[in-house]
């Protein structure tokens, strides 16, 4: 069992341990979860150091590291041929930073769960299963395995939102589940289609191996998703385009793009703080990761054809999300919409098909990962104390919670893209990429880059306006004296959770090469795969 498998299945072991311990030891559950997650983070950082950044990955199996491949399911299904499913995991420059991010965000989420009282056994067990599923998604290189982890992720989330959530939790949990499942059942059909179109040259059997799906040479001539001699059409639309759209739809729901984003504000608002942290910090990234790993790598030809539309969707998400954030009166909802806007940059960057743009998109995902986690944690701090987060119910918080205000100010400035912080690097690279796209002839016009820049402006507006409304001026609270007593400043635990995220935002803002260095080879490889079709 290699390091990657340990990383994936360690949380599962923790979940079983928590389930096996009697309820009389319930005080120990959070420590078990914490210990395992700390160990996971240490392991992922170790892997980050061991990683060889010169290897590219993407569509070459040699370029992947920490690879493990075991035959899992081998079935002879007669006429349909042999079913060949592997336990096949490995990481490249695209997945590795996201894995490190996930372990960090998971740790923050455990820190945020410290005071959960309601059925802790189930809570931490579900959190650990979710952890396993997320690691599995980022590491899986077999499409079947990927899909299994992708679906397994939904169940713990449903219960985490549904049982430990806010007032309208039942509605939010169901909505979230339905949206994601709608995307993924259609994805299953495309997976089956790809399976029949691709043959493993070594064994002659059809395969779910994603790496083999990325090589045009492995496609059967005339098969449904075949590269060459593909006459298949569905209602007049070429089958490969349909496949791309279905997969993009599934991941776009996760990102989320406008207009498929409506589950996100509900899920975020109703979810408990730790789950909001995971939703924003990790799950939205699965969407971006899926587009790069699956849509763009398996359908490079269609990616080159459709990137204008994807970039357009990205720009719309940036602007629409920002305008919505501006209009929100609930602090958590505002941050949820800011996520929509910030994830729009990811889509714009990926669609620009330039090295700067795609690297910027990856960087934006990492940066948004821990910054949004910090933001949701900060909202949780307020909500824990007075059970209210309506922006207009607070005024002049700076005088009674000075340390909290400093943390909020840093997190807000970092998120709005102030130079020196990580979000600036990510957004700037995306915009540079989008500007260059026209001269690189990838089909993304300059005005889209302008649209993205306006988004940065808007994000400054809503963050600063919120800061002004809630924290500055004369102290005036809706709940009067009772609230003033309840609103104590940050305690040590909260500072410990927040510090690494904010420090990382500053560190990566100053030394972005920490991430770029590991990304570069993989991004170039991805672009080289798409370039012939431009």
């Amino acid at each position: 069992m290699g390091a990657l498998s340990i990383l994936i299945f360690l949380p599962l072991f923790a979940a079983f341990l928590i389930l096996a311990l009697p309820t009389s030891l319930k005080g120990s559950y959070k420590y078990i979860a914490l210990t395992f997650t700390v160990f996971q983070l240490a392991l992922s950082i170790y892997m980050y150091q061991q990683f060889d950044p010169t290897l590219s990955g993407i569509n070459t199996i040699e370029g992947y590291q920490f690879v493990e491949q075991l035959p899992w399911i081998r079935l002879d299904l007669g006429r349909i041929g042999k079913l060949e499913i592997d336990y096949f995991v490995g990481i490249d420059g695209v997945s590795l930073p996201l894995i490190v991010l996930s372990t960090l965000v998971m740790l923050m989420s455990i820190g945020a769960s410290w005071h959960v009282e309601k059925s802790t056994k189930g809570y931490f067990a579900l959190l650990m299963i979710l952890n396993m599923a997320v690691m599995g998604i980022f590491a899986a290189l077999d499409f079947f395995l990927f899909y299994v982890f992708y679906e397994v992720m939904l169940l713990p989330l449903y219960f985490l939102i549904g049982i430990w959530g806010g007032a309208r939790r039942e509605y939010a949990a169901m909505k979230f589940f339905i949206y994601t499942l709608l995307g993924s059942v259609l994805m299953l059909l495309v997976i089956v289609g790809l399976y029949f179109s691709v043959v493993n040259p070594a064994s002659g059997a059809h395969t779910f191996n994603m790496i083999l799906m990325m090589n045009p040479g492995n496609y059967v001539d005339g098969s449904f998703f075949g590269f060459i001699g593909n006459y298949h059409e569905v209602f007049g639309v070429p089958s490969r385009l349909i496949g791309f759209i279905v997969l993009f739809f599934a991941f776009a729901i996760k990102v989320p793009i406008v207009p498929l984003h409506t589950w996100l504000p509900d899920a975020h608002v109703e979810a408990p703080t730790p789950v909001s942290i995971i939703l924003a910090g990790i799950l939205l990234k699965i969407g971006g990761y899926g587009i790069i790993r699956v849509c763009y790598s398996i359908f490079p030809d269609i990616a080159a054809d459709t990137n204008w539309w994807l970039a357009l969707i990205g720009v719309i998400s940036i602007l629409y999300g920002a305008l919505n954030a501006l209009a929100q009166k609930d602090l958590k909802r505002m941050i949820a919409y800011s996520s929509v806007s910030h994830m729009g940059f990811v889509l714009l960057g990926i669609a620009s098909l330039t090295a700067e743009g795609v690297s910027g998109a990856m960087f934006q995902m990492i940066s948004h990962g821990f910054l949004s986690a910090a933001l949701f944690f900060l909202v949780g701090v307020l909500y824990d104390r007075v059970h209210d987060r309506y922006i207009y119910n607070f005024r002049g918080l700076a005088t009674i919670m000075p340390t909290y205000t400093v943390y909020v100010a840093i997190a807000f400035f970092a998120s709005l893209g102030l130079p020196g912080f990580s979000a600036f690097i990510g957004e700037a690279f995306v915009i540079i990429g989008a500007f260059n796209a026209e001269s690189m002839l990838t089909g993304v016009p300059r005005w889209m880059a302008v649209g993205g820049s306006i988004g940065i402006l808007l994000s400054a507006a809503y963050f600063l306006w919120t800061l002004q409304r809630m924290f500055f001026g004369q102290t005036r609270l809706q709940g009067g004296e009772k609230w003033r007593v309840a609103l104590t400043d940050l305690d040590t635990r909260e500072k410990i959770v927040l510090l690494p995220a904010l420090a990382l935002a500053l560190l990566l803002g100053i030394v972005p090469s920490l991430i770029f260095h590991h990304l570069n080879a993989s991004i170039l490889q991805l672009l080289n795969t798409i370039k012939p079709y431009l």
Partner: protein
Amino acid sequence: MNVSITDILDQIIASLPLFRPELLLIVGFIASICSALFVEKRLKNFTSGVYLSTIVLSIYFLCAQLTTSATGFSGMWIVDKLSTYARLIIAFAAAIIGLFIQQRHKQDNNGDVYSVLLAAILGMNVLCNSSNWMLAFIGIEMVSIASYVLVGYFSKQKKQAEAAMKYALFGSVCAAIMLYGLSLIYGLTGSLDFQSPQQLQGLMVAPEPIVTIALLFVFVGIGFKLSFVPFHVWSPDVYEGAPTAITAFLSTIPKIGALILFTRLYTVWSSTAFYFSDLTSGFLLFVSIASMLVGNLAALRQKDIKRLMAYSSIGHTGFLLMAVFAYQDAFQYLLFYIVAYVLMNLATFIFIDALEERTGSTALSSYAGLGRKMPVLFTAFTLVAVSLIGLPPTMGFMGKLMIFSAVFDTYQMADEGIVLLLLVVGALTAVISLFYYFRIPFYAFLRNTESLQIGVAKSQILLWVGYLLTAFVILLGLFPGLLLNLITA
């Protein structure tokens, strides 16, 4: 036909070994009648012992037949792998249902129920092993009559008697229509064997309107047993009215036999290029899509878990018909889905029954807040629900994946739009089904309720069987090879 009587006798005697498991069932049937009449009063539960040993012995004989592939009784009786495996699944399910009844109906049980069950199983075996319309009709009637009796057997309330009555009325009408259709087919072709070239040729040359009527009439009878749309209307009432143990029986065993018969029929009848083949495949596609849609959409509005399961099983029947559509030479995925379906349904009804015993209700809302009081039961129930939806890592998902693969393969070759529609409907109904299956954990875990009185379960054995089935659903979902390699070998 001038065959001498000795030749006929020789053939019958030579064919007897093929009939061994069924002979055993007949012996068991008579033995359990005698036992119920004479022994049951003195020795309680003796008949259930007779029943279970009959089933176990028949499993033994079936295993001996695994390598056999032959026909007997002048081609009336087919023994092949498909039939043997199907009968094994039936016997396995029958054992669990016998245990179910034995545990649940201790007081009001005088032992007759086991002989009726054995008769039903015999009928199912006949359906699995025949390509002759005469035998098929006898099989269907045996199962039907036994089912009518079973539904009304434990009836104490008006509702149960009403369910039995509805079932019997609807069933007899369907049987009559089917018989009429069969007589038309016999009249047109002069043959009762649907695999015989004579019947196929007869159907090819027969006028289209009369073929249409004959075929549709025949499908009515099969449709009644499989309860696919539009012959499903009886099932929600009957499922709700019958005792849970009997509902578990109705939702699993009768479907297996009818499905195997339909598979045999469909493979032969859809293989030609003539009108009746087009009609058969068109009908199957239509019925499959309609069943998935109607079953899943109607389930959304149900408030009673047993009614919900009735609609859910209509939806699953639609899915099974998809497997029949794609069936060509390999039956593994069909059997795999049948096994998955049987395991999931038996586990579900065991859980429903355990809850009914404690809360006295089968309303979904009665589960409110129970998740915290019975965490293990509801976790297992939720896992089974996940499998019924068809999400990984469960058997329901593997089964669906294999059927999708088989249908997609057909689509890739034929390139017909309706097949793609079939696939898309199959995938989308999974999303619809999420809504109603997740009402179970929704009520159990997400809803809170004032502390209510929960009775103590009398039988733990049954619950453990339920947990065991759940474990199999997960295990075979992760490692389907364990089962499939067994089937292929």
